[in-house]
């Protein structure tokens, strides 16, 4: 009976890993329990009204924007035929390679008053005063929608491919027109997928730091950053982070619901595509082409143009250091996360108790938690630990300002919490594919536990482990707020360099580090494309 009270071995494996996410979250949330009057009155008077309103605008605007972009594109490429359908089917995923902050400064650089577009307009018409201001709420929403629509596109396309055409055919046999069937059958059926895509896009929106900084558009993430680094008010940063976490947890609940409601069906091979005719055909091509141009091709070309301009002057001795630090951080985080993901996935497979199950879910919650929140949540306990240790060690003659603060280890902890889910998914999928009977077959053929691991698990998990490491590697390379907020002073990476150049409005010089990041980001997107299109 006493064994019931002891935690299972699965819990013992998963608990330390879950703490990576749970501790920062609890640290941040606990600041809600300890409201400090003067911090709050400052926040209420100067910060919160603007931040809350802006956040609301972003959530509503980007939510609508990604749906309006993603759903029609998914429907067209999944169900219809038009010139270029096959090409757009995969090409429309390419914007995933470009971090939102890169798209943001490129668009601002292109469309601002001094940018090439307005300059051209002025030389043609004498004035460009009528041109909409890009540095506006509408501009942020547009850029974020273009950056995050692929989440909706991917999931909606999956839904339409697996059940769309057959459902439309069924509705047509019941006397419904195709247009009506799209709204009455196809979209409602795809609702759980759409909710999944939108919630992922909104999580990214709430987590976004780079884009809103470029637009000087105050949201929770920028407010947290300013409270900490401009006002040196860590309690205020922590209070703001706790509010942001509440929003995020609501999204997590919505996302989990959407995930549960998705039931997969076998892809029907023989359903006819809907052939578009006449003008409609070309309108479809034009629409897909426009989105692809604005969200990927034009920004890519602008990046190249800028890089060409600054390459000779700017690519100097500092760059090997930026690249070296970025690679070091990304490689170490990739290895750490892959290892932790392997332990978690194995614990989930081996120990099926409720405790292990919930700890694994908690451990992989970090994908929803903005980097700024994790940075605050990791920094506070580390700073506390430093103070305790320094006080304890002072009698022994240790004179230092910090022990763990600003070390690579702390950055890695925060990054691991943020990207554990990214690495866990491919490893877990590979792990689930190894059946219990395959393991038993190996045992019955005379292999002991270690031999089973070496001859069955390792070869079968290799693919999953590699893609976990690759995905985390690229995500860490792109990552901005955690790196920015937890690094040691002067320890600049490519992403930090982008931040510094864009905060001074030097788009052309920001283009150089961005190009490296985008090129690295293309690798997993190409792999994703190969997987979904095969």
């Amino acid at each position, binding site marked *: 009976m006493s064994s019931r009270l002891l935690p299972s071995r699965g819990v013992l494996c998963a608990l330390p890993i879950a703490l990576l996410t749970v501790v920062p979250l609890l640290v941040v949330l606990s600041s809600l329990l300890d409201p400090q009057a003067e911090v709050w009155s400052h926040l209420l008077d100067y910060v919160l009204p603007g931040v809350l309103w802006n956040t609301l605008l972003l959530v509503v605007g980007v939510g609508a924007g990604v749906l309006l972009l993603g759903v029609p594109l998914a429907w067209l490429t999944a169900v219809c035929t038009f010139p270029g359908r096959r090409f757009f089917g995969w090409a429309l995923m390419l914007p995933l390679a470009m971090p939102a902050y890169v798209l943001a400064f490129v668009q601002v650089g292109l469309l601002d008053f001094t940018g090439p577009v307005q300059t051209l307009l002025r030389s043609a018409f004498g004035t460009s005063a009528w041109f909409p201001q890009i540095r506006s709420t509408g501009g942020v929403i547009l850029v974020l929608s273009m950056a995050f629509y692929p989440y909706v596109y991917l999931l909606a396309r999956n839904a339409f491919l697996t059940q769309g055409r057959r459902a439309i055919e069924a509705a047509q046999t019941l006397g419904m027109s195709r247009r009506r069937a799209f709204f009455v059958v196809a979209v409602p059926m795809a609702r759980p997928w759409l909710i999944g895509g939108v919630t992922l896009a909104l999580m990214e929106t709430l987590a976004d730091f780079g884009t809103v900084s470029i637009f000087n558009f105050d949201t929770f993430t920028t407010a947290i950053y300013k409270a900490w680094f401009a006002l040196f008010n860590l309690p205020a940063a922590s209070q703001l982070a706790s509010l942001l976490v509440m929003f995020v947890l609501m999204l997590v609940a919505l996302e989990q619901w959407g995930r549960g409601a998705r039931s997969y069906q076998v892809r029907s091979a023989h359903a006819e595509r809907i052939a578009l005719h006449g003008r409609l055909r070309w309108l479809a091509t034009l629409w897909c082409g426009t989105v692809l141009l604005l969200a990927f091709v034009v920004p890519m070309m602008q990046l190249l143009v800028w890089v060409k301009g600054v390459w000779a002057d700017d690519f100097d001795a500092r760059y090997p250091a930026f690249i070296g630090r970025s690679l070091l951080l990304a490689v170490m985080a990739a290895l750490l996360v892959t290892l932790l993901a392997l332990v978690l996935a194995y614990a989930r497979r081996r120990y099926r108790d409720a405790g292990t199950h919930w700890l694994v879910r908690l451990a992989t919650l970090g994908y929803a938690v903005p980097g700024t929140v994790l940075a605050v949540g990791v920094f506070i306990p580390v700073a506390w630990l430093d103070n305790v240790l320094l006080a304890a060690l002072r009698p022994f003659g240790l004179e230092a300002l910090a022990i763990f603060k600003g070390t690579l280890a702390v950055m890695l902890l925060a990054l691991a919490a943020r990207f554990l889910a990214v690495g866990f998914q491919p490893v877990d999928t590979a792990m689930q594919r190894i*059946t219990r*009977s*395959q393991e*038993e*077959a*190996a*045992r*019955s*053929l*005379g*292999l*002991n536990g270690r031999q089973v691991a070496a*001859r*069955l698990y390792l*070869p*079968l998990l290799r693919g999953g482990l590699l893609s976990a490491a690759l995905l985390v590697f690229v995500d860490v390379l792109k990552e901005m707020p955690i790196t920015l907020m937890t690094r040691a002073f002067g320890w600049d990476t490519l992403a930090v360099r982008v931040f510094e150049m864009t905060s001074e409005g030097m788009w052309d010089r920001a283009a150089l580090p961005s190009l490296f990041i985008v090129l690295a980001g293309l690798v997993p997107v190409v792999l994703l494309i190969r997987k979904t299109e095969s």
Partner: protein
Amino acid sequence: MTPMLEVNAVSVRYPDRAVIESLSFSLASGQIGCLLGHSGCGKTTMLRAIAGFETPAAGEIRIDGEVVASASTMLPPEARRIGMVFQDYALFPHLNVTDNIGFGLRALSAAERTARIGEMLALVGLEDECRRFPHELSGGQQQRVALARALATRPRLMLLDEPFSNLDAELRERLGLEVRDILKAAGTTAILVTHDQHEAFAVADVVGVMVDGQIRQWASPYSLYHQPVDRHVANFIGEGVLLPGVVNASAQIEFELGRFDGPTPAHCGVDGCRVDVLVRPDDVQHDDASPVRATVLARAFRGAEFLYTLALPSGQKVLSLVPSHHNHAVGEEIGIRLELEHAVAYVRE
């Protein structure tokens, strides 16, 4: 001679219930046994306990005289020298046919291993497919790879867990006979678990009908069909009906279709004991000359014969298997005659 497999009073319990209660049986070397029962009767659990994937709560399992599981011993699966064929075959997807079959042979030298794999490929007739990967094989071929992989290590005992359930009906019957030939050719003792009695009868020498974690009857397929020990086994195996009857003063059984000498059930010596008599469809023969008449209620065409559901004058239903040139419509009255070598009867409950 010691039996190859001995199961003595084995119980397996899950936290919430007992799956197997004090089960015993044994298999002689070279014999093929079968555990037959509905899903949930504990047959797969018993097989997994023999393999070493379940730990018995009580009892003892011996393979070739060696205790592999008892109160004091629990040999891990890899040390039991058994072979197992899984319901889903559990082939290793990253290895081709040759490497799958050679997976358990790493103790052999390269030359021995190649030779053994070659023997196995020939035994199951997959020489031409030896470079293919599992996903490139048909269901039947995958099944044979699984069998070859398990046989390659020369196991003392082969365990087959519903090995044919993923195959279509036609293939199932053919492969059943094929597997029996392969096992017999290799001289391997084997135990098969299935819910399909045709499969059990086609493959096994001896069959145990399992109900609720117990074996009700452990016998050859022939005696299971013709002398089921109780009503449950009678209902489970084959088709048939139980007709009410009475034992008369001269220890004969009288019922609607006649009077029969025959062993009366135990505890039923007395005059007037009420019994149920098992009547199989092949016991009821079509005979136009017979005075016993019955009305056709339904018929199922099976190619070579019809299975008629007939109503006796009392309203009691019986089944009759009749060669298919005797084509009678529903509602027609036909003559029938009972051909019983010996009646099987159970005390009425």
